[in-house]
């Protein structure tokens, strides 16, 4: 994962986009993919405030969500929205989602539109 994009996979044979990557295209079984960023606007499918956190996290809770982007791709990420609900409109951005020691890990952060 780079620090500017989270990548989904577009099958070069049939054009279907899947995220996360599978070895073979879930639609046609194709083996070759083009990276395509998970981006744009979407709708919250569900979310949760998680209190029992892993050791890397020192905040009181972590807001996570599954989002369906308008492109049809779904993704899981952190939700930076104060008043979420199922159906809330959000936008995909990329930010630091976790620190493991000195390493910064980038991933999807969904923000208000």
């Amino acid at each position, binding site marked *: *994962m780079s620090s500017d994009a989270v990548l989904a996979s577009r099958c070069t044979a049939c054009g279907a986009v*899947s*995220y*996360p990557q599978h070895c073979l295209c879930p639609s046609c079984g194709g083996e070759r993919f083009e990276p395509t960023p998970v981006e744009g606007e979407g709708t919250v*499918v*569900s*979310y*949760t*405030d*998680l*209190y*029992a*956190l*892993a*050791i*890397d*996290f020192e905040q009181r*809770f*972590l807001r*996570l*969500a*599954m*989002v369906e982007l308008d492109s049809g791709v*779904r*993704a*899981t*990420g*952190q939700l930076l929205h104060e008043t979420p609900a*199922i159906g809330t409109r959000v936008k995909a951005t990329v930010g630091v*989602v*976790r620190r493991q020691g000195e390493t910064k*890990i980038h*991933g*999807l952060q969904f923000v208000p539109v």
Partner: protein
Amino acid sequence: MRRVMVVGAGMTKFGRSSETLSQLMCLSSVAALRDAHLGDVPVDGVVVANMGAARINRQTAIASALVDRLNLFPATAETVENGPASGSSAFKVGYQAVAAGMADVVLVTGVEKMREVNNLEGTDFVASMSHPEAEYIYGVTLPSLAGMFARMVMERYGVTRRHLALVAIKNHANALRNPYAHIQQVITLEGILEAPEAIVNNPPIAEPLHLFDCCPVSDGAASLVLAAEDVAQKLGKAGVVVAGIGQATDTHAVHERPEPTRLTAVEIAAERAFTMAGASRDQVDVVELHDAFTILEIVQSEAAGFFPKGEGHLALERGETAFGGSLPINASGGLKARGHPVGATGMAQLVELTWQLRGDAGERQLQGARCGFACNFGGFGNNVVATLLRREDR
């Protein structure tokens, strides 16, 4: 394929144990072997179900170790890992060996010694089942997946926190009759939901799930001895037959499921088990579901085909799934109160069904139990094993 019977059953008390991983699996195995009264009949194979030994207990190949501890050489041995469904998967592997004629007698033991590490380590270990790049890195844990699932189900079908609390209250009450249960503690609606103190008594874990919606972290082991029908008959122990086993998988990343409120793998696994057994849902008397989170008991009861989709919570509310109801679910206390040593749970469910079918379930005996169903839920529902056991009349 030969018919396979369950001829021996045993388990340890679940909870926080001072025993080591090795001691736990031995205690449970010896209990089941003694119960089987094999006499001169040798054990041909050993299958061990476990998820965390390599990481938590720093041991691998523990089935081979169990053969050694029990002096069962040169029996075959495999360790089976299928997350929280390891127990039923190991049972399936043992069953297949006997059914195929490759073994006459197989010992299957599920074991987990979780409390060798602290809760942070434990949470992370369980979270390792989630998709590494698409879920885990975000801080996703199993409770968070369950929380998101619960929210969708609650919004779509009108399940409320009160329904979830009723599951926990029922299972805690049931466990009072189960001497093997980790938690024997009455809880009340007032204490966990209605009183102002409930916010401290029952704090959020992964909203809308709270503390008492989540099963505890437990140590323990559970074992069964499987035998080919003719061997079982010679032993005079041909009472419980393995009628059906079904398994199915689903997407790893939960967000990829076409309909995320459906537990598709449960639906398919259950259907496969019932088809293999030639049984119908109304023949089932005793049910063990995988209530790692209270919401899962409700939705699994629907997905397994006992209630229409979206009506599991109504059946619960009517008391149908209570100990005295028409379809008691988790009379043992379920994962919520019996406890959840990850690799052992699937086996504990089947030990419980065996005892119920034999009439050996003590104070929690369900009268006239003839057919039992268990659902063992791996990952967050991406690998599910369903099993049907039936009582055979001699």
